[in-house]
């Protein structure tokens, strides 16, 4: 249960987040296509999920032009798995001409040649390039259970290849790795990353959004997991990423990168027409507000 109707309230009853200005644009460059079928994926990406398609560079240009006019500060390239997109490197070059970029990947395509090309693209830009790689546990027994057999070692090899090319990848870990949110869990994770060759490990911990595949793996949202106006503050609402970001897929512009499977979260076809308040009616909104998380780096 994620949507507003299911929770039995009209959309006017939800707290609204104001759009303060477009700082961040997410591009679903791989749509919902992925080489993996992770059991906790909040949009159920897989090799055969084509509900959002692969974006071409040509399709991205109008959005990049619009983002430039609107003074966007940063860009994220995600999916699905971005490196499935054959144009990912030209897309990255075009994005980095305009501003800093972060690519979110499962790390399986990060071989020496790709990392060398990424290094050249990063060095040619005036702006920062971050690569975020997902790990879901301290070893194959945790990670592969969620992401598939053999994926832990391949992801670690990708992380090593990045480090060999002077990148400082951010390793993203979800709370599916039990205990990772605590001090001990974090310390263990840092030790793991040091042991695989990251001399300056960087970590981002994300909560689980109980939608998509994750709703089946663990559980979906309960009806009480909704926000109400009397339980939110203006400061808390202003800190949400939907106050300053939008997500672009082949199907249009969405309020955030989490809710692209919700028809009510599609706000328009162009960025400019989506810069309006949004009612926080979804279970996922509850997770963002309560955990204080942002998908940004």
């Amino acid at each position, binding site marked *: 249960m994620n949507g507003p109707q299911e929770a039995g309230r009209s959309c006017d009853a939800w707290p609204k987040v104001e759009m303060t200005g477009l700082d961040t644009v997410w591009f679903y460059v791989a749509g919902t296509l992925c080489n993996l079928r992770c059991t906790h994926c909040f949009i159920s990406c897989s090799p055969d999920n084509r509900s959002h398609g692969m974006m071409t560079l040509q399709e991205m240009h109008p959005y990049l032009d619009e983002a430039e006019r609107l*003074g966007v500060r940063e860009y994220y390239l995600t999916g699905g798995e971005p490196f499935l997109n054959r144009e990912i490197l030209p897309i990255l070059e075009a994005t980095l001409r305009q501003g800093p970029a972060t690519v979110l990947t499962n790390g399986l395509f990060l071989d020496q040649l790709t990392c060398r090309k990424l290094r050249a693209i990063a060095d040619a830009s005036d702006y920062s390039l971050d690569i975020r790689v997902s790990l879901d546990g301290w070893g194959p027994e945790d990670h592969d259970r969620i992401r598939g057999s053999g994926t832990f070692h391949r992801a670690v090899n990708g992380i090593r290849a990045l480090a060999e090319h*002077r990148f400082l990848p951010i390793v993203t870990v979800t709370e599916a790795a039990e205990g990772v949110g605590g001090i001990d869990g974090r310390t263990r994770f840092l030790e793991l990353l040091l042991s695989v060759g990251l001399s300056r490990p960087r970590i981002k911990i994300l909560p689980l959004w109980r939608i998509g595949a994750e709703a089946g793996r663990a559980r979906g949202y309960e009806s009480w997991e909704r926000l109400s106006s009397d339980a939110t503050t203006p400061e808390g609402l202003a800190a949400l990423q939907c106050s300053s970001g939008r997500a672009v897929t082949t199907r249009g512009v969405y309020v955030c990168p989490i809710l692209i499977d919700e028809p009510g979260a599609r706000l328009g076809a162009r960025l400019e027409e989506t810069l309006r308040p949004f009612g926080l009616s979804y279970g996922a909104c509850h997770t963002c507000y309560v955990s204080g998380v942002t998908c940004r780096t």
Partner: protein
Amino acid sequence: MSSIPAALFPRRAAFFGGVYSNSHALEEAIRDARRRGAEALFCLGDLGGFGPHPGRVPAILREHRVTVVQGNYEDSVGHDRPDCQCGYTDPRDNRFAQIAYDYTLLNTPASCKSWYRSLVRTLRIEMGGRRLLLCHGSPRRQNEFLWRSTSPVPFLERLLRDYEADVILCTHTGLHWGRTLPSGGQVINVGALGRPANDGRTNVWYALLSVGAAYEAAGPAPLAVEFVPVAYDHERLAREMRREMLPEEFVETILTGWWTTCLEVLPAREREAGRF
């Protein structure tokens, strides 16, 4: 316009950022700026944190008539808030930030706290017909980090448009940089006097802005920007920090020029340039 003090229309002015209780660097920077002909001196906030004896820097600033914009540190210390509001996200960074803040809060005289509360968050001045907006982090948020590699041209043009300025001056990151934009606007992060610029050198930096010689004939034009390195007695500062039992990690930064703490907020580009 004639009612505005002459100091708000300087032809050459020095801008200091992030002093972090480094009184020795501040005194040296003031001497240097005066020697270079600065008619006005400005400080963009974060007077305390990191270094020893937080009562010294406010006294020096007032003695030398430096105009001060409030940083997040002054807001926090002035209001006895529980933390510095620097905006760190990493547990280790927050632990060290809290040590610096607790020490600063405990050792800041009450008279300074009331002064901190009275400081303005932004200040507008004019130089060579250009409208300057002085702030701590950014015009829109006191603790926003404007790093060079994550502050693209379209975004900076938007800030200048939204805040009706030709030049924005800020600090907060501790790293100095400047961009002159296609519109002719300028955004300048003046850097920090409190600790080195994570480049393996022990000097610190400030920014000196000058009106071009052609201004009278040709009208407003981008201001000349010079980032000035300041050498000071950093070993003396390190000795004082140790006497005050401040973390050895902080002392190491002063003695080596490499940042050892508060690193997780750095974008990839700036982090790659450092040692840790």
